[in-house]
């Protein structure tokens, strides 16, 4: 079991989990009205979009991590 290379791979995938954090907590980026989507200002549809997006990212990280020795 090459745990050190496995460990590095696991950690890099986990960095992906930072993406939803940055995307949703960096407020100045999305605090605006344009561009709108079906009349909804950017601020709102951007946040709504990140719900399924972060689920997708979490699922990717989860499936990379999902083997017996990966419960760290």
């Amino acid at each position, binding site marked *: 079991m090459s745990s050190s290379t496995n460990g590095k791979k696991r950690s890099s995938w986990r960095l992906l989990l930072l993406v939803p954090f940055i995307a*949703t907590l960096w*407020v100045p980026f999305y605090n605006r009205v344009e561009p*709108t989507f079906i009349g909804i200002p950017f601020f709102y549809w951007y946040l709504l979009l990140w*719900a399924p997006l972060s689920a997708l990212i979490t699922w990717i990280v*989860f499936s990379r991590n999902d083997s017996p020795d990966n419960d760290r």
Partner: protein
Amino acid sequence: MNWTMIGVFLALFVFVTVLGFVAARWRHGDLTQLQEWGLGGRRFGTVVTWFLLGGDVYTAYTFIAVPALVFGAGAIGFFALPYTIIVYPLVLLVLPRLWWVSHKHNYVTGADFVRGRYGSPTLALLVALTGILATMPYIALQLVGIEVIIAALGFHAGGWAADLPLIIAFVVLAAYTYTSGLRAPALISIVKDLLIYITVIAAVIIIPMQLGGFGKIFAAVPHAKMLLAAPPSASLGSYGAFATLAFGSALALFAYPHTMTGVLSGKNPRVLRRNMALLPAYTLVLGLLALLGFMALAAGVDKLPAFASGFQQYKANFAVPALILHSFPAWFSGVAFAAIVIGALVPAAIMSIAAANLFTRNIYREYFRPQCSSAEEARVAKWASLVVKAGALVFVLELPSIYAIQFQLLGGVWIAQIIPAVALGLYTRWWHRGGLALGWLCGMVVGTWMVASLHFAGTVYPLHLFGFTIPAYAALWGLILNLIVAFVFTLIFRALHLAEGQDATAPGDYTGQSAQ
């Protein structure tokens, strides 16, 4: 008094009540054992855990209060979105370790874990007391949510007429929680979610059609509420408030006892991890729900005479019920209101079970009856959960609802202070139990003081530091101070060679790699 609406509502309520009692026979287990009653036997699979954790995170109060905040204050109410988006990666990273170590050592609560990890009954007691204290107002708020819906159903008069439905709901809830334990809310939450999803999806399609589209809805929103106000110079302004409310609430949710209960009842950590990818479905629903706040604004429901008394009594919390009454036919209003009320009963049940588990394991068994059998534990927990709910009921009936709201704001600040002990403890033994206890104390005191200085009207405290103003959620300020104090005193106590306590766990316990 619309009898169609009330009829549909009652039919659903009765159905769910029957389910609550039937749940005792589901996934059969010996309900005289605490593990079975309080954790469903640790056997729930992915789907049931999805429903259970969803019931933990998305409570009736959430459904009423988030749109209410959007209705009253605008964009800042949307902090619930980033909050529920980032909480899942957080939980995915940390809580599987708690699952493994709890499974190995038969821990039922977060305080059990702290007890084993640090060998400190005192630290465990602090964690348990904080958990119980923070959970009680949350239960009370679910009952407030039910009150609002009862008013919307038409039972207005003060005194017994309004109190009676709430008391009936409470008695019924208490009865099936007593008999079935965690299985009851787990089973009922399936029905609850179906109803919530149906209601929200219908609302988000039908109401914008009635109002002429999202463009028209947002056109009715005053400019000041549409976006977050740009911060003044030398200040983080509303950006700081928004981001820290999101981050702090995510941290707090992770620390609440009912989250731990939901997590520990899963049959393996994969269940947990799968759910971290699946639970965001609820986040989407919450976001759509929040938009209902703006729809209520656009529909002008607060100006309609029919809803005047509701708004007078419940202020912005009446926005969603009023919108439902205004936009839907009577029978669907019955469905929607049943969804919200059931959405109150599920978390109230889970929270009271979580609080009861804490009391039983970390106060009763620890300090009064260390030799008690598992059967006695279960008995005590059943009664404790009853007392906790009764306490919340009395609180709601006797005091104006504003107290419950304020108490709950404080609860969020308090529960965050156990994070160092629990979360850090899952990774390292470095922190000294005395340091953690002192850190807890400082975090509690300062956090409470900050909220008090805001006259309990809010939790965002603007700290003035080096000419810069940083408004942030008081829970985070408390936590930062907590960590600093714990750090400093860990060093001091270690230098003084103060006793550290026995660690009952082994490093392999956190990843399921030690021999079972």
